[in-house]
């Protein structure tokens, strides 16, 4: 068994492998050992066995093998050099070997390669640059100073000075000389901005990872430090310079933009869909130390829970008549239960609650807004001036009011007292929603073919707060509450018309829509599409 100590470097392996093939070493006769991995074996012990295989002087390799091998070579697995040699050897006899992913050697190569590729991908994703400036930065941030290093004869050496609890930590940097003739542009400022990142990849991937950053940040001056090696890019000379590894403290500890970035991070996720397992599987904990936004995580995770439940309770705590609506929806039961309703504040001031009236098997329900002054006093819907208009329309259309059911979206009168007058006030959306359970119970009890909403409030109740009445009146709409809902204007709109002409127009609209509702109601209900 021949043992060779290899530097962790692909070209070193290549040389050794070429030589070994040439000499005719079978894979099992060779031990390629990683010099960075401490070994218990006595390295001076050299067994005398020579190679027993035929010498291979012109070995076959393929592009795809070299690519995979170069990738696997930076893996920290100490056995990778032997694996690569074994595969290279077997490739000589079987050129399709790499296509057989189920072969144990090939599978192992694929495993190493995919781990390295994942490591590369994560490094591209999770490196975080921090900007440092030339001297005179007043904000107490890490700065670049011009000083001579004890070991460096060049008196003008740029050094990054990072304040740490143990004093300033100095890191040497390539020199920045802005081109005095270039006119600064927004993308190429004349300052010597320098971006520095510290990162700890799983494998020795820095040389493979660097080209990505060159491509992406080619106009920036940057340095990436890792424990194994560091690399700097000089945008003027367009050169990468590799240097030994550095500890984390050598990089700046912060960047003023990180607060802004954290604000963004905290705002961009949806607290109603917390999925920390998914987050951890994509961004394992070992990467966290590098990411400024992660300091927020514990807090965000705790708060999300309460943010969502707050949201839901807020919506559930909106006033509602639901607790007062009996389970049995028959009209007499509903009628009996109504006076006890305290679903919203309106019950406090009205004279009485005004229930709906009409046929228990009506094919058409008319829904008004709320009782007016007269209705409140008499306890009957549509008995005041608006009721007169409604009666007139129904008479013209020859509709018998006892054949329909008439009710209101809100069952109590809302008003403000002005002297001895009680002035009608529009109900708010919250009151309309609060009272909706009564209306739904009535609809459920009667099972009409059509519900006609008179005016904006009733439409809001069944068609939503944003329903555009003047645009979408007279259309047959499907809702979760009733299959066929039509909206039209409230009869009182006719009374409030600014002149006779527009009053007649409004009357026409009411008439046409009511006619549509009535005729539609006579046909059996369509099943919803």
């Amino acid at each position, binding site marked *: 068994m021949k043992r060779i100590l290899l530097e962790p470097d692909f070209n070193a392996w290549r040389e050794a492998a070429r030589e070994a093939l040439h000499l005719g070493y079978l894979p099992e006769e060779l031990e390629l050992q990683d010099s960075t991995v401490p070994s218990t074996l006595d390295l001076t012990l050299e067994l005398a066995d020579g190679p027993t295989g035929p010498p291979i002087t012109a070995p076959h390799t393929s592009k795809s093998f070299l690519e995979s091998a170069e990738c696997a070579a930076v893996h920290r697995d100490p056995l990778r050099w032997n694996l690569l040699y074994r595969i290279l050897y077997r490739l000589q006899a079987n050129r399709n070997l790499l296509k*057989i992913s189920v072969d144990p050697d090939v599978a192992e190569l694929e495993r190493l390669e995919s781990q390295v590729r994942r490591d590369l991908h994560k490094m591209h994703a999770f490196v975080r*640059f921090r900007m440092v400036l030339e001297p005179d930065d007043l904000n107490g941030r890490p700065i670049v100073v011009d000083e001579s290093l004890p070991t460096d004869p060049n008196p003008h050496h740029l050094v990054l000075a990072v304040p740490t609890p143990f004093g300033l930590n100095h890191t040497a940097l390539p020199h920045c000389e802005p081109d005095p003739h270039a006119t600064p542009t927004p993308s190429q400022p004349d300052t010597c901005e320098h971006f520095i990142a510290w990162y700890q990849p799983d494998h020795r991937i820095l040389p493979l990872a660097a080209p990505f950053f060159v491509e992406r940040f*080619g106009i920036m001056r940057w340095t990436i430090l890792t424990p194994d090696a560091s690399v700097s890019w000089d945008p003027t000379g367009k050169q990468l310079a590799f240097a030994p590894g550095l500890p984390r403290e050598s990089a700046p500890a912060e960047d003023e933009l990180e607060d802004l970035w954290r604000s963004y991070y905290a705002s961009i*996720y949806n607290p*109603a869909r917390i999925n920390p397992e998914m987050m951890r599987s994509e961004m394992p904990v070992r990467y966290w130390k590098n990411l400024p936004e992660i300091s927020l995580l514990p807090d*965000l995770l705790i708060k999300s829970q309460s943010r969502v439940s707050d949201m839901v309770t807020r919506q559930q705590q909106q006033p509602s008549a639901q607790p007062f609506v009996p389970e049995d929806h028959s009209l007499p039961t509903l009628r009996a239960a109504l006076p006890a309703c305290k679903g919203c504040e309106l019950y406090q001031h009205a004279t009485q609650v005004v229930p709906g009236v009409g046929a228990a098997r009506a094919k058409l329900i008319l829904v008004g807004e709320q009782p007016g002054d007269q209705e409140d006093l008499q306890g009957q819907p549509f008995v005041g001036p608006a009721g007169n208009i409604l009666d007139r329309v129904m008479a013209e259309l020859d509709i018998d009011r006892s054949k329909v059911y008439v009710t209101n979206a809100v069952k109590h009168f809302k008003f403000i007292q002005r002297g001895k007058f009680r002035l009608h006030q529009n109900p708010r959306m919250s009151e309309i929603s609060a009272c909706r359970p009564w209306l739904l119970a009535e609809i459920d009890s009667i099972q009409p073919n059509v519900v006609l909403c008179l005016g904006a409030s009733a439409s809001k109740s069944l068609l*939503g707060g*944003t329903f555009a009445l003047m645009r979408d009146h007279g259309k047959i709409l499907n809702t979760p509450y009733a299959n066929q809902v039509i909206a039209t204007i409230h009869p009182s709109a006719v009374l409030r018309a600014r002149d006779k002409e527009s009053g007649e127009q409004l009357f026409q609209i009411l008439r046409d829509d009511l006619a549509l509702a009535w005729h539609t109601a006579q046909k059996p209900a369509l099943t919803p599409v």
Partner: protein
Amino acid sequence: MNVQQKLEILADAAKYDASCASSGAKRSGNGKGVGHSDGMGICHSYTPDGRCVSLLKILLTNFCTYDCVFCVNRISSNIQRARFTPDEVVKLTLDFYKRNYIEGLFLSSGIIQSPDYTMEQLIQVAKSLRTVHHFGGYIHLKAIPGASERLIEQAGLFADRLSANIELPTQQDLVQLAPEKKTAVIESTMNKIALHKDEADEDRRKLPSTPKFTAAGQSTQMVVGATPATDREILKTATHLYGQYKLRRIYYTGFSPYPDADARLPLKPAPLIREHRLYQSDWLMRFYGFTAAELTSEEEPSLSLTEDPKTTWAKSHPEFFPVDVNAAPREVLLRVPGIGYRNVERILSIRKYHRLLIDDLKKLHVRLKNALPYLIAIDHIPHQQPAADEAQPFTQLDLFAPLSALTGSL
């Protein structure tokens, strides 16, 4: 209001848009500004909801003149409003990009003044990034439904991706919940994008120096679970959109409640698993040769929440199975539960040199539990075999479209 406060409001307002991908566009570094795209898309972080942070995803403003019930930014919504200047967005994008926080910008907006005015504002940001700062990162712009042809064309020259959101699965849903938005207007905007892209791609084939138009194509988003629309309807709409406008992707986003939502919307979020099943079905339709009609039925218009759609299909088509992994063509292998299309490719490649055993499938990480009842390998025959003269499974062949964009798997 400072930039940080604006950022909080306008990122918060953008978080319900699920389209965060930064893939599909390749652009090399240009030597004049920062940025490149290698076509793969990179997630620079993950938020507690498990989503990828790839782009700076913000609205230019959350002022909106529309009143879409399902939208937190609707005019009637009682939220704090803010507006970025185009320059502020440009600076934020570049500052974040230089620190390697993001792949680029996703910029949407509430509709202010008019669709054209809003679109112009978005374009101004993209134009400044590309022409003043030579920014080479990814840009995704919202195509404002109803914006004019001229603006769509301009936007597509700066953006890698344009998207007009279809919002809800059916026209009826839109009528109810987004009265100002019309399917016809949204689709005509999609159509404009598709036509321009076609033309530009055609021109580029003749003259490669023709500028690219939306290199990463267009996508759209559909909110699921805000209305009673069934999965069958949703998949039907998806098929229509993919076919008609060559969308790269449709994002399905389960409805989730937000503060002070309209009372007609559900209080509880749509189950995440439903969204997941829709994505699975979407993959099956795009890469596995399934059609929307096969995945649900008139009687059962919802996807199963407990079982993936491929398994559901397999269970109801015993005549199709078992399938021999050492002989069946690609299109047939793709229909076996538990085998993703990457593994189908590998199986096809391996079996030229090596007859596959169950153990080999295990090494490929085929989900054997799902797959075993449906396949034959050298050392495996499932218990129940279909009768010998059963219908020929291969008659399904012509259903299968060629595969493209092979990423991800089921």
